[in-house]
């Protein structure tokens, strides 16, 4: 028996028909065709599938779709506004804080969630907040620099 689950995705109200027990990552990627969110491990170890649920960074491979009913989800596709990159995206480009790009969406979404919770993160807080997100190409130092740059820009705008 299919049931309908409604939530907001990148600002738009969405309803999906599911059997229940599907992981959110599958629904986002397969049902809703938002493939910017990546599968890296499926068990919450790597962070490539990180998205925001009600502004909290969450691993979309670790949460069932029915648990997001009525909530607000933001994925990497939701960060560009009116054709402009979000300050975190801009800073990732400026610092070239990526190589293969496969962990990048998760990195950016996790960083966004951290900055929403605390816009004035120290370098140490960035490191501890990002530590569960893995990058095999080795862009960690550049990612930290990018997050600091983005934080400055976001704070100036506020």
């Amino acid at each position, binding site marked *: 028996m299919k049931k309908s689950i409604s939530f907001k995705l990148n600002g738009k109200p969405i309803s999906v028909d599911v059997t229940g027990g599907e992981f959110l990552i599958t629904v986002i990627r397969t049902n809703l065709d938002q493939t910017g969110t990546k599968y890296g491990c499926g068990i919450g170890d790597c962070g490539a599938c990180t998205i925001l649920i009600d502004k909290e960074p969450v691993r979309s491979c670790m949460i069932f779709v029915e648990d997001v009913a009525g909530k607000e989800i933001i994925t990497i596709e939701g960060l560009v506004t009116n054709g402009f990159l979000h300050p975190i995206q801009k800073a990732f480009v400026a610092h070239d804080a990526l190589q293969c790009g496969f962990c990048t969406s998760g990195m950016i979404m996790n960083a966004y969630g951290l900055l929403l919770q605390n816009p004035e993160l120290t370098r140490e807080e960035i490191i501890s907040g990002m*530590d569960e997100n893995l990058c095999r190409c080795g862009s960690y130092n550049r990612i930290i620099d990018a997050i600091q740059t983005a934080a400055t820009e976001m704070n100036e705008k506020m």
Partner: protein
Amino acid sequence: MESDKITQLYFSDVNMPITYDRRKFLKKLGFGIIIVFSIGKLSLLQGWGQNDNEEIADFNAFLRVKEDGRVDCYTGKVEMGQGIITSLAQAIAEELEVPISSVDMIMGDTDLCPYDAGTWGSLTTRFTDPVLRAAAAEAREILIDLAAEQLGVPDTMLEVVDGVVFVKNELSKKITYAELTKGKKIVQSLKKKPEIKKSKDFEIVGKPIISIDAEAKVTGKAKYSADIKLPNMVYATMVRPNVYGSKKILVDSSGLSVFEGAELLEEGDLVAVVHADPEIANKAAKKVKVTWEEPAAKADNETIFQYLDDHIQESKVFEEGGSLDKGRASSMKIFEANYYDGYKAHAPIETHSATCYFKEGVLIMWVSSQTPFGTREELSKALDMPLEKVHIKQIFIGGGFGGKVYNQQAVEAAKIAKLCGKPVQLVWSRSEEFMYDRFRPAALIKTASGVDNNGKLTLWEFDIYCAGTRGTKLFYNIPNNRTRMFNKDDIHPLGTGAWRAPGNNTTTFARESHIDATAHAVGIDALEFRLNNLKNENMIATLKLAAETFGWDSEKAKGHGYGIALGEDAGTSVAIIAEVYVDKNTGEVEPIRVVCAQDMGQVVNLHGAKLQAEGGITMGLGYALYEEIVFDGGMVKSRRFNSYEITRFSKTPKIECVFIDKMDSKPQGGGEPAIICVGGAIANAVFDACGARVNRMPITPNRILEVLKKG
């Protein structure tokens, strides 16, 4: 393919074209100026842009200046994070005098791009870049000739800025590349070495250019193999054994009946379930019970080294000089030690994936492969189809590091698509990724060194078991030496293959640890000892640059240690100096700082070169300190990131990369070299910090504490 065979490929048939009629393709191409050439012959044999009488049918790279003035570059190389989508475009833009934004890179599409043996071995910048530059220079010459004709002036009077040809001192007289190519079709094979720019004239090469694919990657728009969705596509989940190398005996699929629409597919040892919903395919596959015949366990992660030692007798001498007897006799002291390294996984964040379908007898596939043409061949053989009936499409790759040279998932996906008659997507789970990875092999190295009264090395014996000889040609001046390679087919209980700079990581760790131990034993400073024994001027200059940048003589904080390692890879000399802090109570190592100096010839993209070196160092800290596959026979126990630890944010030190200024030299490899020195530099820094000489990687807290306990 075994890693040693790949090494052979570096020197024999990299990029050699498969005979394949491309005339048809050229006919299909629209207007423009097309320069065709064979990278294999041009680059590998003659080094830098000479050509013989190549037939157009044999070309394997080309460049096209289109009617709109934009430039298409077609190359069989792929982009997997190493940045060549930017650096190659940069070289073309430089020679053609166009903005980098007007260069489009078409990469790794087997129908559109020229044959390429694979993206590995840090070959692109060394061998593809020079030839692309020559082709771009040739295209520029043709365009200038056309312009001279149209503007009615000799070509010496012309200059090009941003794709517009001007008459010098008369800037109103001009014509654009777009106007020049309009309605024309000129196909020319690169025959001679055109004049290419010298570094003093560079406007784009050598500049730090931000990756041109960065924006696609930060917005989630960049497409990878698992991001393709086809109409009526089904998702496949493989049913796997627990032990590598198992053979299928019996399949019980009775559990499938509760999953409506789930389909079981079998061919040989392949067992898979497909469903239109990936989660149902997953759940259903778990209900399929297969009886497997498991191979007998040869060894586990602790016994493997003794196993290799016991079972490999045959060796080949790789390098030899002087007389070992003489060396032993003239040595004041002789030191012997064995070094060990366990199996390492590639562990890219993107697991092996493929999406494919059949259309009118042609197999079309998007696949996370470092070798699109090799994958095409593999598919053609596995499915018994002609080569031209397999088409691999261009796609981004989420990290390769050598692991995506092997593409079992491509064959699995294609077979499943054929069996079920529908488009198929197969994405390996992380657990499958670990199980079916082709690991960097476990290896053992036996060394002996001797030193005379003047602190000069007089003896060097280096017996390498399973790590290959890449990078082991001696750059130290040791008159009496012998390097041997011990290997045996099918010796490993797990799949093995090329891992970013393959065995050079292991042998560099062994050599540089042993050099350090030798220096320490005779009471000479590690830097001085090396400078005193090096023969290669490039290496001496590189080491000095690293030592100055690092501040080798600077005072160390309590519990901190410094360590040096030197190595050669892909034509590049590398010197790394690391600083670590070791907690003597827990054995925990904290990497504090790494300085890396490289002589990589001309640095095409300073920024890209830094990214690659930083990335290699960050990744390398993993193999040095944390990474080791735990296994028992073919049973891989490290199957997720919490049991196979890689470098994290909190473990990443400050990294500084510097380069020898050699802008007029040939560019050398950049993707791999830096990583090879990380193990040795960390081992030596750990010793300097706490006195523990750990001869086995990874250098874990337990191994440090064990050595400290022994005293």
